[in-house]
């Protein structure tokens, strides 16, 4: 039974993530009075890319070749070590700081891969990604630290096991930290107003610019990994701040409820992201640090309020 749950936990993120991309695209299409593609389109795209030939620049080094595998593996590893639908799958890598800095490995390799072929756009993407992720890191650590302080643990499973919303005296801190976290979520998952995931303008891209040189299997892995990252952040946001409905013990009923509730949470977050992307324009690049600093300040206030 436990093995089975572990297997579900391991495969949950990569299996569900393409669906979320499809759902967000569908909602956005509806906002634009369009029919939109099927919510399963991203699965088909991945399938298609897996069977396509690859073009690799002759200037590419091993970083370019292996980065997609490293990045994809990181998202699988992180996806397996955070609470998704159950709060009792504690592992050695389930510490907040470990998770944040394992994710940093993927950002590191993504940026290197962007610069590796020497194309101007890749360099752009990497430089912008570094600017944003350096500023986002502070906000991310501090918002997670807030929930860690409230629940006196840095282990994500323990945090999600204790429903922090029952600490009603810290409600304001938690809400501030959540707002801060949500801003970081948008930045880290290359969403509006930071980056436009559906843009075709090579000069404005951040994430897309870094993977511009990829094709075939490696492109599929890169895109899949970025979809995984979105679920990981949604999982952290929903299960650390609002752990309602998460399975607390090994029983079929609890697990089924846990999975359904988690899917609903994902749907909720996707809807918010889609609404946001349909209603605002992308920010000018130099306004983005303001937003990230706002997140950081909110989180600092949140921490100060806990004592």
């Amino acid at each position, binding site marked *: 039974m436990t093995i089975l749950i572990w297997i579900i936990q391991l495969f949950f993120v990569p299996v569900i993530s393409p669906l979320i991309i499809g759902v967000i695209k569908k909602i*956005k299409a509806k*906002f*634009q*009075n*369009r029919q939109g593609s099927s919510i399963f389109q991203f699965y088909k795209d991945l399938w298609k890319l897996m069977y396509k030939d690859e073009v690799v620049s002759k200037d590419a080094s091993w970083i370019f070749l292996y980065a997609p595998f490293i990045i994809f593996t990181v998202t699988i590893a992180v996806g397996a070590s955070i609470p998704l639908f159950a709060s009792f799958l504690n592992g050695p890598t389930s510490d907040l700081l470990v998770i944040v800095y394992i994710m940093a490995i993927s950002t590191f390799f993504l940026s290197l891969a962007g610069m590796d072929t020497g194309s*101007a756009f890749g360099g*752009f993407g990497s430089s912008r990604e570094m600017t944003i992720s350096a500023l986002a890191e502070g906000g991310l650590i501090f918002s997670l630290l807030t929930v860690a302080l409230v629940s006196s643990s840095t282990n994500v499973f323990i945090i999600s096991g204790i429903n922090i919303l029952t600490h009603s005296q810290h409600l304001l801190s938690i809400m501030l930290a959540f707002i801060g976290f949500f801003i970081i979520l948008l930045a880290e998952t290359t969403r*509006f*107003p930071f980056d*436009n995931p*559906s*843009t*075709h*303008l*090579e*000069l*404005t891209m951040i994430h897309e610019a870094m993977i*511009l040189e990829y094709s075939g299997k490696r492109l599929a892995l890169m895109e899949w990994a970025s979809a995984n990252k979105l679920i990981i952040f949604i999982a952290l946001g929903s299960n650390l701040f609002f752990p309602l409905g998460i399975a607390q013990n090994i029983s079929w009923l609890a697990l089924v409820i846990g999975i359904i509730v988690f899917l609903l949470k994902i749907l909720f977050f996707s809807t918010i992201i889609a609404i946001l*992307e*349909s*209603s*605002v*324009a*992308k*920010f*000018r*690049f*130099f*306004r983005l640090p303001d937003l990230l600093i706002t997140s950081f300040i909110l989180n600092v206030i949140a921490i100060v309020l806990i004592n």
Partner: protein
Amino acid sequence: MTKEKIKNYIPKNAKVEFFGNTAIFEISSFDLKNEILNLHKNKKLLLKLVTATDERKENGCFKIWYIFGSPKENIFIIPFIKVKESEEFPSISLIIHKAWNYENKISSFFGLKPIGHPDNRTIILHENWPTNIFPLRKDFNWQKKPAEASGKFNFQKVKGEGIYEIPVGPIHAGIIEPGHFRFSVAGENIVFLEPRLGYTHKGSEKLFEILPLDDKIKLSEKISGDSSFSHSLAFCQALEQLSDSKVPKRASYLRVIYAELERLANHFGDIGSIMMDTGFSFGGAQGARLREMIMQINEKITGSRFLRGVNVIGGVTKNINNDVKIKLANELQNILDDFIQIIQIAENSSTLLNRLQETGKISSEIANDFGAVGIIAKSVGFAFDARLDYSYAAYDESIKIDIPTEQAGDVYARFRIRVSEVYSSIEIIKTVLDKLPKEDIILSNQVTIFKKRSIAIGVVEGWRGEIIYFITTDSNGNISRVFPHDPSIANWPMIGFAGLNNIIPDFPLINKSFNMSYSGNDL
């Protein structure tokens, strides 16, 4: 009357030839600079374009034409110089900056050297074209492919610590026309930007000399596909002058309707694309939807989404009957209602306005020096519009035309100009539909014979700005030279200044707000 007006602009001793509202006179190369300066500075005429003709067979010389227009008076003053043995002519680029690219083009295509021009690089023709073959000379063998050459193009360099050069294009990530942009950046800031065009060069000017007449009109529709109707209208108007053809009243009214429909379709598309490029996807989708509605109206009325095959010499081929007339008025009202709502939503989005305002600014001095036309000119406060300045078709028949202007010169100003022009275009179509006279749309059995050794200029305000066709005929009455001047040719050089001191991620938005034709520039 017209002759009297024209006399004011012409030196006393000059031998003047009149062709309708156009006057040509020869000046010597020696007097050129003074005379040009006089017309430009003292008489306040606008230099429209500079081009050349190869008349070595008939007159034993090349001629270089300087076409000046006088807005509101609807007259053209064209001094020209003859270039005999030397294959050189004095450059006026340092007096009138606008002439810069035109002189370079003469140098690239006619092999005549502008003496005193600071930039001797060829334009439009690339490094693979031999430097000693000039395609617009009459003795150029257009059926033979010249040998591949290998030259080098020197981009202008910016040197300094931390300056990087970024080559972008000619192939882009989206589906747009090809063009190369060389950015010099310090971080994200654009320090210098040089566009390099010519990737869609297809020998249109030479084709105009070779093709049979009917195909020439079709060719004019393809100079810049999104302005098919305006281009063929300008061409047909010039041909009508050359052949003294009569255009029935109904046809000239219909031409106004079609021209405004074309303007509407493109403005809707651009307004949408500008919003789309900021990531404001709602506005983007709506712009595309409205454009499509106009395109479908076009198809229903004329059978062509781009209004092709409508213009002919002496009228139009497609009529609007009473049923269609009522339907068109209703549909336009619906489109207008939708559009008003969309613009309200857009104007209430602070994130959208933040991206548009202060982005891609050009000053009125720059616009003046480069001789900006159309939307770009209007966005810095110059109310140039060929519909009023050089009135044609039924535009002079007591139709109220609002010419919007803005002062800021940024992306938002160009956005606002388009929005205002949409309102005014819908208003014009409604008025014209009401007044539509009952007549034929084309006079039957009208024979077109062109005047010999003549010149004609056709001007139309396309949606980008004024489209000018400069046409000459030889001693047999055949068309010997056509210069289809798309407004893009005048406006392209300004893109570098619009991009200056902006950040790289804003450039696509700036370029979209200009939205110039690559095909129309490369010819």
